[in-house]
């Protein structure tokens, strides 16, 4: 084997790669925030007595969970592009990831809602709380605890999935890596270092989630 590793070009671009990791983290975090809000609404819609709402939410969940995430990104890029609706790469990735997160989280949330006893709602209502008050103050906080770990997993998944951004021309961590790698042909070196950066990001997220859970869930 006469391949010689050259790590220096990679290290020279390390500041750019770290900068790009921030972009990765940003889009992942935003897509999670949107995903949690939409996921909650979808979970409620799936349990709603209104048929079209249930139907809409079920379609969303089915598509998000049973088609490749890459295709979901392509939909927001090339799919809508075909109808003259164009988004910047950043938004293609943000919308794609949010769509996917919402679909997966909706199922987790639905399980969470079913795990909170009906009697909690009754008790809240008996105190004069409205349905929205009861959900926001009593039910949802309990659901969030039940789904905390699946939610952490989804956050990790969102970070890793954002690497698909390079397929739609988004210069997040993978896109940036691809860009430099193809300029220098140090493909292995670049992606090896980037893999380590992803690994570090995920470890930081898991650590932070653990710390936050100790602070959040004192009961």
């Amino acid at each position, binding site marked *: 084997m006469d391949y010689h590793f050259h790590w220096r070009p990679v290290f020279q671009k390390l500041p750019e790669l770290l900068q790009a990791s921030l972009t990765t983290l940003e889009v992942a975090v935003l897509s999670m925030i949107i995903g949690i809000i939409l996921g909650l609404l979808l979970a409620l819609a799936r349990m709603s007595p209104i048929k079209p709402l249930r139907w809409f939410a079920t379609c969303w969940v089915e598509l998000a969970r049973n088609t490749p995430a890459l295709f979901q990104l392509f939909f927001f890029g090339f799919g809508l592009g075909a109808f003259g609706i164009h988004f910047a790469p950043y938004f293609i990735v943000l919308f794609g990831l949010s769509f996917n997160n919402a679909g997966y989280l909706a199922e987790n949330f639905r399980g969470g809602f079913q795990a909170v*006893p009906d*009697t*909690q709602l*009754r*008790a*809240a*209502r*008996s*105190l*004069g*709380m*409205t349905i929205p*008050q009861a959900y926001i*103050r*009593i039910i949802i*906080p*309990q659901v969030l*605890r039940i789904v905390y770990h699946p939610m952490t997993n989804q956050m990790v998944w969102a970070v890793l999935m954002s690497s698909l951004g390079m397929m739609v021309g988004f210069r997040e961590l993978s896109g940036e890596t691809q860009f430099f790698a193809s300029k220098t042909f140090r493909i292995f070196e670049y992606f090896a270092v980037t893999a380590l950066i992803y690994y570090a990001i995920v470890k930081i997220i898991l650590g932070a989630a653990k710390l936050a859970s100790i602070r959040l*869930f*004192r*009961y």
Partner: protein
Amino acid sequence: MIEIKGLHKYFGDLHVLKGIDLNVAKGEVLSVIGSSGSGKSTLLYCINGLEEIQKGAVIVDGVDVHAKGTDVNKLRQNLGMVFQQWNSFPHLTALENVALAPQIVKKHSKTDALEIAAKQLKHVGLGDKLNVYPNSLSGGQQQRLAIARALAMEPEYMLFDEATSALDPELVGEVLETMRMLAEEGMTMICVTHEMGFARDVSDRVAYFHQGIMEEIGPPEQIFGEAQSEHTRKFLANVR
């Protein structure tokens, strides 16, 4: 005053309450006894509108609970309820459990709500448990917490749905003691209960429910001494 007029309640095809007529005056303590499935718990849920009714009416202080346009949320503030499964909110401390509704329903400031909550918790003997989460309270303490939570809304009526049935026997006493205290303070109470001692000693009247019908109602001496109805006598003979 709570007026129940010709109340019918169905769960699907199941006819749970078959025409109940009953008035409960301010300051009265009414115990409702009867075997499981006789409709006595359902009656409570119909009074505060947690269950819909199919026929008849429930009128609380002149307000028809089930009429369209009735603000049930406002009405329920005046009808405290305590459940068999105490239903404390697990994610909130004892203090927060009690303070939440005064704050978000009655719109008290947070400081006022916490003050009301602390006062009510002391009232039921949980003054030293303010910052404890429900999972480290015993069943009896959680049930007293539930009573404090209902009292914090300053209701004029309290509905107890088998408040001691799910408790370990050694914890029943403290909850009954709290209920007895409320009765002595003049609270209007409807207590669905299996505690015959409580029904006899504390109530002004006792109602016996049998298969969705109120078989008999009267002062405790009558029900426990010279019950008119065959069913009542049979039931009491079995529970003693």
